[in-house]
């Protein structure tokens, strides 16, 4: 019965990981965090697959997880290339910028109240300069002769 309990526990963990990834994918607006949540969903599925493979004593679970790993790597490469391209065009990682790609029967999402941008920018402490400034030659700033 312990194998059954192990399977049950692992399926619950896989379900939780998948649901957390789902919530993150639906609700976050940063393109990279959305992709992170998609990867989280793949992790949940991997955990469930390995658990079923162990329970049925079948290698297919682990082999499918190997292929999921491969596909996730390819997906990460393409997705991050696309994300960086979209960032170059839009200037921000906000996916609401591209919302005209939505379906035609939906209304546009308009931000009602935006929180202020620099509300939580941390202020790092600064040290008062002390000592004598070193003399810097002009040629050294252009081209360093030695490191």
């Amino acid at each position, binding site marked *: *019965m312990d194998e059954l309990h192990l399977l*049950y526990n692992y399926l619950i963990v896989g379900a939780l990981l998948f649901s957390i990834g789902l919530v993150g994918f639906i609700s976050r607006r940063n393109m990279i965090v959305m992709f992170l949540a998609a990867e989280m969903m793949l992790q949940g599925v991997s955990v469930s697959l390995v658990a079923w493979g162990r329970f049925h004593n079948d290698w297919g679970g682990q082999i499918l997880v190997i292929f999921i790993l491969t596909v996730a790597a390819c997906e990460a490469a393409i997705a991050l290339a696309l994300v960086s391209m979209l*960032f170059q065009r839009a200037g921000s990682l906000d996916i609401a910028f591209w919302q005209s790609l939505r379906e035609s029967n939906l209304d546009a999402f308009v931000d009602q109240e935006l929180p202020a941008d620099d509300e939580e920018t941390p202020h790092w402490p600064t040290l008062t300069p002390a000592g004598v400034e070193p003399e810097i030659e002009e040629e050294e700033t252009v081209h360093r002769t030695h490191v």
Partner: protein
Amino acid sequence: MTQAQTIEILLVAGRGLLIALSFWLLLPRGAAGGRRLGIALGAASLVWICWEVPRLSPWSTDGVFLVLAAVTVVSAVGAVTLRSPVYCAIWFAMTLLGVSGLLLFQGAQFLGVATIVVYAGAILVTFLFVLMLAQPQGFAYYDRISWEATFSSIAGAGMVLVLTAAVSSALAGTPAAAAADKTDTDKTDTNTLAHAEVVTPLVDPSTPEKRSADILSQDHMERLGAQLFSRHLIAVEVAGTMLLAALVGAVAIAVQHRQITSPNAPQHGGSRHGGLEQRALGQGGLGQAGLGQGGQAHG
């Protein structure tokens, strides 16, 4: 409907409500607070789920599993709900560590290490590269609000409930549980899942194929390699080709972008917003056609 059924439905609904509420409180919702309450409710819902699930028999095994599972799930929640994307990536790395531990706990040696090496070592580092290139200083406004926080938390709670219910109903119908129901005549306790005497053997000696697929054997790696390169050889080759295609595609996307920003790029009329999208869709289509023609020329 009997009273026991109503109580069960109420318990399930209460669990779903707790999970939905903790998701909703934890998601970034602008300047609204309540994160600590969200953390408390999330911990409470995790403890409740853990209570419902049957535990493993030696308490040391159970303790190790609980620690790994707690690390994984808490890091996953952090990776999805924090306001800074770099923190999200770091907590995702912690989730990967937890998942790797869970896979090693199951006996999947190769996957436990491959998760760290490939996911945390390659994919996550690529994430961080792109983040460092694209993330503005401080917290951007789009990191501190979320789209449909209410709807997504309800959807997440619904997903957890559905998957949990599916798991428990699937396991209640397995032959082991059915045999436990039959042999469990002396005990008066009705919780058959926790007190059954039937032990399912790990190695099923019925067919030769099942006898050889022993995941917990000493030569786990040899057997996994043998399975992978004999039964799934075509899939391995296809995966290699797919990696090549992804590499070519990523390079093509990056190079194509540089061609767009050159002054010879085709200009579309309209507003800046519309022009960008038309250019994006048009160049995306041209890029696909270019890739297709290039592939056919070389193939």
